[in-house]
């Protein structure tokens, strides 16, 4: 396996309100690999991702981006290599899709210059990759939740990052677009990107991720390939007893299902 492009080492972080503390010894992202971060609500997945993206400064520990300490780097230099899609984005203005995606070129262009031909080609490609060609002139307010999510992803892709950190990117997407989305991630990983996805879609993560990190209460429960990590015990441990582990009929990869509702309970 090639060297890690991004590593998070020995981070500790807690919020002022207390109750929760993140303790992670090591998260390493490798080119060409998708890592899925899975765990119940409040496990610290998003916090870990935000620390990895340099959006949140941890109480202790460090993030290394390609041999440099991320905290010491210019934000623009970080953005050339690392793309981050937050979980919730509330745009104040009603930008058009094309305009929004163009904003992703920020790290590469001087702020006032018009986009060059090459920049516009990259914007076009990002729009194509996220299948937004027909919506490029639309203002954000006229998009569905899933389309908006894709538009923001497109703006992140326009940064041309080597590393993608995505926080629940498929939340508002229908199952078709969820699958398309993960296929796109697979495609990007094939081209050499290092991807980390925080998601509640355990099954999609199992199908598409190379590596799964299971988290609970701010720490790792397990880390490894989907087959190694997603065991009946681990799933029960993570989500409780109403969950059933099954096999994907085509790939044989583990998938999870809710247990059957007892007939008398249903009535």
């Amino acid at each position, binding site marked *: 396996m090639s060297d890690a492009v991004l590593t998070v080492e020995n981070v500790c972080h807690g919020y002022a309100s207390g109750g929760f503390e993140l303790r992670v010894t090591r998260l390493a992202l490798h080119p060409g690999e998708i890592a899925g971060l899975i765990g119940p609500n409040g496990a610290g997945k998003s916090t870990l991702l935000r620390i990895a993206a340099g959006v949140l400064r941890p109480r202790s520990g460090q993030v290394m981006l390609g041999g440099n300490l991320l905290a010491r780097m210019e934000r623009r*230099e970080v*953005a050339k290599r690392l793309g*981050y899609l937050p979980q*919730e984005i509330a745009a104040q203005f009603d930008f058009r899709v094309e305009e929004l995606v163009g904003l*992703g070129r920020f790290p590469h262009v001087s*702020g006032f210059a018009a986009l060059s031909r090459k920049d516009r080609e990259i914007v076009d490609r990002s729009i194509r990759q996220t299948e937004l060609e027909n919506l490029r002139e639309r203002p954000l307010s006229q998009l569905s939740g899933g389309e908006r999510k894709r538009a923001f992803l497109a703006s992140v892709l326009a940064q041309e990052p080597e590393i993608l950190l995505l926080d629940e990117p498929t939340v508002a997407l229908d199952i078709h677009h969820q699958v398309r989305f993960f296929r796109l991630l697979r495609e990007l990983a094939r081209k050499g990107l290092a991807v980390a996805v925080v998601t509640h879609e355990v099954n999609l993560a199992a199908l598409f991720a190379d590596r799964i990190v299971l988290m609970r209460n701010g720490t790792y429960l397990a880390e490894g390939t989907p087959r190694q990590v997603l065991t009946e015990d681990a799933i029960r441990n993570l989500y409780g007893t109403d969950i059933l582990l099954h096999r994907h009929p085509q790939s044989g990869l583990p998938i999870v299902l809710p247990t059957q509702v007892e007939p008398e309970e249903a009535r």
Partner: protein
Amino acid sequence: MNSRIIPYLLLSLAVLLIAPWIGTEHIGLDHLLSYLGGDGNPGGSVLIGQRIPRVLLGFLAGGTLALVGASFQVLFRNPLVEPYTLGVTGGAALGAYLAIAFPALSVPVGPLSSMQFMAMVGAGATLGIIYFFARQQQGLSTHTLLLAGVTLGIVCGGAIMLLTYISDPHKLLQINRWLMGGIDVVGYKELATILPFLLPGLGLLLANAPELNHIALGEEMATGHGVDVNRVQTAVFVGGGLATAMVVSLVGPIGFVGLIVPHAVRRMSGFDQRLVLPASFLLGGAALTAADCVARSLFMWLWHSTTELPVGIITALVGGPLFIRLLLSRKFMT
């Protein structure tokens, strides 16, 4: 962006060219020419020494308020913010009032009257205090900034009421007049005094226009796109605060320009801050200059009287209803 700024430029140019000729006295091109010829024509002298500096100050003040308003509405992610929301006016008013109420504080500084100087000090002190409160470990809290600003404005208001209550009634007239806002300067000296502080302030705002596009997407998204959010927030606050303090110290509180103009610009020209900020400056400048033309000629048009109205009355009376119309006519902000 480049070509879409042109209508704003043309409008501003037109207003700047026409406004000096409007006023209680009729002044024509012949007056100007004979004055420039060196015969000391009084009309020409009024034009050069009073009308033109007044038009310039009006344009700069209106432009500054609108530009700061546009920037602050993004910085605070709040469409209702205007330059005065941060309590700057309250601080400036208190400073001006202190200069009036306590003759000991009446020390003119350079070409500035003691009122103008103390207003500047008051505005600066207000900004310093709220900045101190809003500084945190991980940068600047815009929430705290806004709350502290509004609160401090109220405190200053209370202090002014107290001073009003206990002080000499005929001084009230002066402060009352100050609170109405006006652009009645004579000459270029005041203008020249604030420019060294005003221009860097405006420059800081305009220079951060590209970054403000990203701030509008939220701090996390902006950081992800490569924006140093804390640096931009600090620059916009300092630049906007400085510019507002300078303008307020000379013209007092002039409402609504800083609130409405950015909304109007975004409505007409979209949301790219690289266009919105300079366009707001131009439209704000044109709007306040035009309002001041009305303020200084309305009574003459109506009753052939040379009395002037404070321009703050015009902007509030015309601007208020306009804003409500804007508010009702479509989904707010978007």
